[in-house]
């Protein structure tokens, strides 16, 4: 549902926005019309360009009287778009494109008013902008609020009031840690009357080590992290230390430029550490194959293209991947650009697996190294230090040695990047055809229209590329900052300031708040890429604290909340739904990092996998209850729960997940043993509370699940359910025992199975509520 809305919002965007702003704005009002209707044939792609005409540049539109500023009568463009003659008419009828009356009117107006031209917003570096003035001086708490309120005041749309404190805390907790607030934190916050109580809790959550897990959840989607190779036999490959490195990096608040360099080129950093090498595993996250009959030459071309798609989507918000076979249809990326970008990665040594990739689990993907996690390395250092002390007692020495061996046993193998001395030759592949060796040999370079990495006298490297992407003194770095300012905004406000998180190109969405986006991008750069500080600024704003409940006026004039006069409410990502259920049940294992885990999964789900055939064995210890981001990510058969709630298979970059609302998801929450076990554990937790009345237990259940108490109606509905279930289980005690035995958690014998089963039904209801799985 959410995804279909997103698709149709694209249709609506031009009109809605034009209505909101009175003055004509080229990038907002005109460029999308040209881009959607004209640029495919009259754009940057020289080969496809019709009549030698291009409408994506100022020079282009002025040539041959196509557009005569101020003169609609004689501008050819107007003649052709207004023509009824099928041979004359533009766009031509066979293109299946057509201008609406409104779009034609806008083009008329644009030319009549002088045909002002602006460069595409995303290819111009963010500019310093003054913070706008507002009428309601007491409303803004910071710069963000000035931008938001000024625009709302322009539209005469008052923002909603702030959310109540419980809702706000719940929102903040999910947004920053991916977990619901504990009942203790909730009570503490509700009772904290200090003026800086909110800031205190913001700092506490940003300092929580679950912050890194929450950020990693998003990052892993971007970089397409998974536990399997993706193609053909989809065997396991070894990369989980990279995932843990990402978590640690966010927790330590590694500056985003350093974070980028370590991943793209950790191996090339001077005196690369083990962590740098682990981080360089980024380059190995793509899908690979050793299927019998693969032609290495073909697959090296596939891998190169995969990398170009990912690096451009992640850091540049670009669809450079479209230029694999031809110049980009809408953006100034050329075929040449695609292959010069690919050349940056031509040094990655990885051809071994075409020969030695085996159908084992895990398979081999050289080069790999065996590593300990940072935590284990630190623990090991402590133990070894203690062992150095000659004076320790023999029994203590034995214990320490045992501990050391236990830590060493945690070693995990992980794919890393090793640079070949001589990079592979990279050629431009005409029409993307890997069999065609006629193309020019190219050296690494960034897309020509964006400048150069600025290296002279040697071959530019991945490290140069990473520098270029994050050099805050250059346009390129500021543009990267804008891509991420937009995505961090999305994480906290439910949609980006530009709605297209993946595509900042000509076909992407023009930002609704371009000045704010530029302001934030520059702030990110000026703050030395400090991610936590950036996020803190956003959550401290009043805009962040608003209620998500719209007023009729906001719904009418801004149905999609493009102006952020209210907060967002949306169904949470798959992992958070799982984690929240386990957490309220008291089952969640909160350890950070480690090898991937296998929760319960329907039998036979992997039966289509072969080479080798797969038997899934779920973990039978506490690993069963670890957080969703640690779940074994099988690209071809992602765990059905994750899939039902729109987690991506991680074959490609995904910057935004759909938020579907389907019967499959309902069946999962109702019947997946993970959720049934969570319900029976939550029931047990409620039964063991201090007070035994139904009302007290239910109130506790509501606080755990929803961070609030029940209304009388809710209480009545659940009491009725409880009484029916109690009655049923009294007559069928064997059913009660079957239900409370779901899953592997211990079944206590001091509780009445009938009571327990009846409360399990109540707990299932709580886990299935729309409100429980929604971030408000």
């Amino acid at each position, binding site marked *: *549902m959410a995804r279909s809305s997103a698709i149709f919002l694209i249709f609506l965007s031009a009109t809605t926005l034009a209505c909101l702003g009175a003055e004509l704005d080229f990038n907002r009002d005109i460029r999308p019309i040209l881009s959607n209707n004209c640029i495919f044939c009259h754009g940057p792609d020289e080969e496809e360009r019709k009549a030698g005409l291009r409408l994506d540049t100022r020079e282009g539109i002025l040539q041959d009287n196509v557009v005569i500023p101020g003169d609609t009568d004689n501008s050819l463009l107007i003649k052709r778009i207004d023509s009824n003659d099928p041979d004359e008419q533009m766009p031509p009828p066979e293109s299946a494109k057509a201008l609406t009356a409104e779009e034609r009117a806008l083009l008329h107006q644009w030319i009549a008013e002088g045909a002002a031209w602006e460069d595409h917003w995303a290819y111009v570096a963010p500019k310093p902008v003054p913070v706008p003035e507002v009428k309601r001086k007491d409303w803004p708490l910071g710069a963000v609020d000035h931008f938001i309120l000024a625009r709302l005041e322009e539209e005469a749309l008052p923002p909603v009031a702030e959310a109540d404190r419980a809702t706000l805390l719940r929102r903040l907790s999910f947004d920053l840690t991916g977990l619901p607030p504990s009942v203790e934190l909730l009570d503490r916050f509700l009772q904290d009357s200090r003026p800086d109580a909110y800031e205190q809790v913001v700092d506490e959550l940003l300092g929580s080590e679950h912050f890194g897990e929450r950020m990693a959840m998003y990052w892993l989607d971007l970089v397409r992290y998974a536990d399997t190779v993706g193609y053909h036999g989809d065997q396991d490959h070894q990369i989980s230390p990279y995932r843990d490195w990402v978590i640690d990096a966010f927790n330590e608040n590694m500056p985003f430029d350093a974070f980028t360099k370590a991943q793209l080129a950790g191996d090339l950093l001077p005196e690369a550490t083990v962590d740098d090498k682990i981080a360089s595993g980024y380059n190995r996250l793509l899908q690979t194959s050793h299927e019998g009959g693969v032609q290495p030459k073909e697959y090296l071309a596939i891998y190169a293209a995969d990398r170009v798609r990912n690096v451009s989507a992640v850091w540049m918000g670009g669809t450079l991947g479209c230029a694999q076979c031809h110049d980009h249809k809408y953006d100034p990326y050329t075929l040449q650009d695609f292959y010069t970008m690919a050349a940056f990665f031509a040094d990655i040594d990885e051809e071994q697996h075409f020969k030695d990739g085996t159908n084992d689990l895990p398979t081999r993907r050289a080069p790999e190294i065996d590593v300990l996690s940072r935590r284990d390395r630190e623990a090991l250092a402590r133990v070894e230090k203690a062992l150095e002390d000659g004076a320790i007692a023999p029994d203590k020495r034995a214990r320490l040695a045992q501990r050391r061996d236990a830590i060493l046993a945690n070693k995990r193998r992980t794919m890393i990047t090793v640079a070949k001395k001589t990079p592979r030759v990279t050629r431009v592949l005409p029409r993307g055809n890997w069999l065609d060796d006629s193309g020019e040999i190219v050296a690494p370079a960034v897309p020509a229209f964006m400048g150069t990495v600025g290296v002279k006298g040697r071959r530019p490297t991945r490290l140069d590329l990473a520098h270029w992407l994050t050099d805050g003194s250059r346009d390129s770095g500021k543009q990267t900052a804008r891509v991420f300012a937009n995505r961090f905004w999305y994480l906290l406000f439910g949609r980006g300031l530009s709605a297209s998180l993946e595509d900042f190109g000509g076909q992407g969405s023009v930002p609704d708040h371009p000045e704010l986006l530029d302001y934030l991008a520059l702030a990110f750069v000026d703050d030395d890429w400090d991610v936590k500080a950036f996020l803190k600024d956003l959550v401290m704003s009043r805009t962040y604290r608003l209620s998500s409940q719209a007023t009729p006026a906001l719904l009418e004039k801004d149905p999609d909340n493009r102006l952020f006069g209210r907060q967002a409410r949306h169904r949470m990502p798959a992992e958070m739904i799982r984690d929240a259920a386990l957490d309220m049940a008291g089952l969640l294992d909160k350890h950070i990092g480690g090898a991937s885990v296998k929760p319960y999964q329907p039998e036979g789900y992997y039966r289509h996998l072969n080479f080798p055939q797969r038997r899934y064995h779920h973990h039978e210890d506490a690993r069963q209850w670890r957080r969703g981001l640690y779940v074994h990510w099988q690209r071809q058969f992602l765990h059905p729960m994750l899939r039902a709630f729109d987690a991506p*298979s991680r074959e490609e970059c995904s910057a935004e997940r759909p938020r579907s609302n389907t019967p499959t998801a309902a069946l999962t929450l109702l019947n997946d043993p993970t959720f049934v076990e969570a319900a029976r554990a939550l029931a047990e937790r409620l039964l063991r509370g201090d007070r035994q009345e139904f009302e007290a237990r239910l109130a506790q259940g509501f606080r755990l699940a929803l961070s609030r108490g029940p209304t009388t109606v809710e209480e009545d509905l659940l009491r*009725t359910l409880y009484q029916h279930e109690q009655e049923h289980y009294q007559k069928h005690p064997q059913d009660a025992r079957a239900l409370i035995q779901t899953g592997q958690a211990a079944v206590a014998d001091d509780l009445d199975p009938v009571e327990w089963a009846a409360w399990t039904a109540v707990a299932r209801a709580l886990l299935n509520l729309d409100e429980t799985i929604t971030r408000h």
Partner: protein
Amino acid sequence: MNLSLADTLNRRAFLAHSGVGLGAAALSSMLHRDAVGKAVSHLAPRAKRVIFLCMAGGPSHLETFDYKPELARQHGKPMPDSFTKGQPIAQLQGKPLTCQGPMASFRRYGQAGLEVSDYLPWQAKLADDICVVKSLVTEQINHDPAHTFMNTGTVISGRPSMGAWVNYGLGSAADDLPGFVVLTSVGGRNPQPIASRQWSAGFLPSRFQGVEFNASGDPVHYVRNPKGVTTPQQRRLVDTIQALNRERFAAAPHPEIETRIAAYEMAFRMQASVPELMDLSDEPASALELYGATPGDGSFASNCLLARRLAERGVRFIHLYHRGWDHHGDLDRYMKICAGHTDRATWALVTDLKARGLLDDTLVIWGGEFGRTPMFQGKGGPGRDHHIKGFSMWLAGGGVRGGQSYGNTDELGYHAAENVVHVRDLHATMLRVLGIDHHRFSVPFQGLDMRLTGVEQARAVTDILL
């Protein structure tokens, strides 16, 4: 899955009467169905649904429908360079390329004298019902990307499969079943892996994705009540959840809550309808015999019978995979096994649909993700490698003129030489039969108008239609 029409109407009424002052634009952006319905009005539809029988692994065209006497004459001789030079080759890379004559005899069947090999005696009886296309070409030579290409028209991940496109374009006609169902079976050479991306909805809303029905375990994931919970209890639980969600809606109205209420109702209904569909005990013995099916055995035969039941219940796209057709070696043995698993049931399905009057508005498609080389490969007895430059598929029902073949490969069965049909032409033809103009059937994604048939020119092969 789709909400039923009734749900959609309720939803309209609900929004109109809920006191939420939604603008017309917001309303239409939520009622995806309005926009989706546009697709069906392009052309007069000849079929309402598709049954795709995918012979995964790539059956040999040279031992099924494409008889090449010249290849028999060249048997054992080197494959002429003029055919293979510069062509992509899979497992035979760098090996000597030798002609391998047909390993089966062929006979002519039906009024049109369609040539069918002796491996397929049952499908031979369909000669007057099917149209064999002998000139298919694809672009991918390894299984996984070739399936992705056959299903989505591209090898780039994240694009919708054809079943999702059809489900999206036409909507489900079933009230309590998904509109796109996948059934798989094994038997033959080492079963081909099939990734769930083959039935993905890609960038389309996920409710249009294929749902796999399983012969063993739960027929659909999590469709069974938890242990210790009876159906009346589950009903009571769902009713309580619905009432609580309505209560929440009253306090904080949002259309997603209403969608969730509809989703839970559909989920509960599926808990009854899916097991009922999968339970063949209401089929007479004669039906089981016709297909050669044993209930619950997960065989291709059972899946064919289930395909008929799904077609009867209004499912739009029914995709069967039989995963045993990768015959690099010992082709004769494995052809016999695969044909033994699939041939009779395929005949039974077409025959049964015809007898029930369903064939007229059902398009049945048979074929693999590619064909096999005219060259010998010998992994344990003669076999053939992957081949993408010319292979055969057949279509039946849904306005397709039976009793004909279309297109041809060259004399050695290597290149499609006459009336070439690219995978995207097959897609265009399928959409045409369903009343959809492939060119106008697009969805904006990442700034492009995405089509099943992609950006290259595609043509609906109208010559084969009635």
